[in-house]
């Protein structure tokens, strides 16, 4: 019937050019699809340009919103990235954000540590909380063979519900009995940088990105992680301490998400609210994937996704597009990028039927 049949064969070598080509091919296709979709919603090209580029980067108000949101997005993107480096699926960043935010809030509410070092104590407590939240899942996978996709996922709910219980119970604001914690005193807030809501957390996020880049590219642990991701059995055979490296990377990843929680409560909200850890799972995965698990790429991707949210907010206000727009665009982008990866991993050729069908 068909004279040619498709033949899929795995690629053994991937050139850097092909890798870049598929990545930008995927992003480009995704953007074109999203643009076409938004054009059918009654928007003109000039509207799109002014909303997505003009407002998010050109307008001080928009840029402020973009950068502020990018801080926590960078941290969760780095979190997923570190875990991906050892093939550990961290889809529990929300739980880790809750853990970090709760730990930081506990430090404030119970006056833990010297008052002069309040912020530093909160910083460490948040890292500890987030790291623990992810670390137990990594330990469960390494020693008890529990699938990390399920455990990190479940820990999201445990974290969120623990926070709700505290907010409706012991931590409820005594003044007006709303389910939010007391406002943090000034000593427990991250300094504003004099540009809108952008706070000192941006240095934490950029520092974390630089650290992760060093860790993945130049450190011993990074090259061991590379070996583990390629083939865990072979890595173990040549003496790489697989369990310790995976545990370390997962704990560090969790700690970064915990820091995201810290930056939200100490830099944006100044209190623990019911909405601190909402809607971070999918963006974190998108950012890590668009960056191809490169920590410096995460910085760029996080700013891009943050801009998407900024534009989404103004689209909601001016064009009455539903809030689901941003999620749909993110999903379309990731869909295209992951589909294009097919060409990265496989070679697709068409061979004539009836002849030798092996290349």
């Amino acid at each position, binding site marked *: 019937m068909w004279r040619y049949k498709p*033949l*899929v*064969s*795995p690629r053994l070598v991937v050139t850097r050019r092909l890798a870049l080509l598929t990545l930008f091919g995927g992003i480009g296709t995704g953007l074109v699809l999203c643009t076409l979709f938004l054009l059918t919603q009654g928007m003109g090209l000039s509207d799109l340009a002014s909303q997505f580029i003009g407002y998010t980067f050109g307008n001080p108000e928009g840029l402020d919103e973009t950068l502020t949101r990018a801080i926590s997005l960078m941290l969760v993107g780095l979190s997923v990235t570190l875990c991906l480096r050892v093939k550990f*699926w961290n*889809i529990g960043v929300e739980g880790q954000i809750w853990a970090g935010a709760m730990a930081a809030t506990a430090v404030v509410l119970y006056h833990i540590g010297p008052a002069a070092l309040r912020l530093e104590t909160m910083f460490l407590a948040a890292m500890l909380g987030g790291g623990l939240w992810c670390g137990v899942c990594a330990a*469960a996978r390494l*020693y*008890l*063979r*529990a*699938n990390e*996709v*399920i*455990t990190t*996922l*479940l*820990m999201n*709910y*445990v974290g969120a*519900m*623990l926070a*709700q*219980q505290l907010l*409706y*119970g012991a931590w409820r604001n005594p003044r007006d009995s709303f389910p939010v914690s007391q406002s943090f005193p000034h000593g427990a807030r991250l300094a504003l940088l004099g540009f809108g809501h952008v706070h000192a957390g941006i240095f934490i996020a950029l520092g974390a990105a630089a650290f992760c880049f060093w860790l993945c590219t130049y450190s011993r642990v990074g090259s061991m992680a590379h070996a583990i991701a390629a083939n865990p059995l072979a890595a173990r055979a040549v003496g790489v301490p697989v369990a310790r490296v995976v545990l370390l990377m997962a704990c560090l990843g969790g700690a970064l998400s915990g820091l995201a929680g810290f930056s939200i409560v100490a830099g944006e909200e100044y209190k623990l609210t019911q909405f601190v850890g909402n809607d971070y*799972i*999918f963006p974190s*995965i998108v950012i890590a*994937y668009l960056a191809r698990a490169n920590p410096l790429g995460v910085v760029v991707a996080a700013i891009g996704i943050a801009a998407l949210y900024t534009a989404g907010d103004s689209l909601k206000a001016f064009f009455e597009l*539903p*809030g*689901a*727009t941003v*999620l*749909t*665009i*993110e*999903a*379309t982008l*990731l*869909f295209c990028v*992951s*589909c294009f*990866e*097919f060409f990265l*991993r*496989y070679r697709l050729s068409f061979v004539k039927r009836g002849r030798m069908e092996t290349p």
Partner: protein
Amino acid sequence: MSELLSAWAATTPAFAAPFLLATIGLIINERAGVMNLGVEGIMAIAAVVAVIINLSGGDVALAIIGGVGAGVALTALFGFMAVVLRVEQVLAGLVTFALGIGVSGYLGDGFQNQPVAGISPLPAAWFARLPTFAAGILDQDFLTWFAFIAAVIVWFVLTRTGPGLRLRAVGEDAPAADAAGVPVMAYRMGAVLTGGVFCALAGCHLSLIGAHLWVDGMVAGRGWIAVAMVTLSRWSALRAIAAALLFGAVEALVPQLLSSGMNVPVYFIEMSPYLATLAYLLIAGLFQTGADARPADLTRPYLREERR
């Protein structure tokens, strides 16, 4: 107290049914070696399409058909990514989840919070001869009944028939199944789509029976719970009934407790099924029980050209 108990028991099956439908759908997927994390999105899109059709004058049958059609269309997209293009299944599932939630938010934007007729329980007269307590439990709607019957049928097909055996072979050892002449791709795709039908039915159940309306964020993580319940029921559709009843019972308990005015830590109670599943996973790992129930080739893509 006994009133509370009987009200609790009578509402439990309807709370358990969506969990059960989604879980058996996922069991069919995972037995063939495909992990579908997109259930949440599939349920959302089925729920919203069913409500839109019901609101626009279509009857219940049409609403269910439409909802299932939309859910299966989204599942087909997942199957294209995960089975045909061999994208990492976790990633493909997350994309499906986000697409489903996003698109359903779009479709349902003008239809939020509008009550639908939905599906009513079976006529009470059918159960009039039974004691009140039993009648309360048994007097459910047909979709809830279907969920429990389907679980038994799926268990039978998967474990006692030829196609079921081949499906499990594809999930346990795809290269061996391929060598034995089982079309791996066709079985995986078939399993994904069949599973999608059940997941979509779970979504229709949520909107047409549970809530009688559509509102954004309505699925509220139930799809993710179903993913965890597959592990809890150790990939067996029969044990899925018990797992679904456990989660359903906890979910049915909370409104009863709230309406009775008792002062209880609601969020701790809601947290308990998650903790139970986590504890189960850890205990199963500790004693190495049930570890073998996980299909060996789960999430592992198969390509004949790169045979191991």
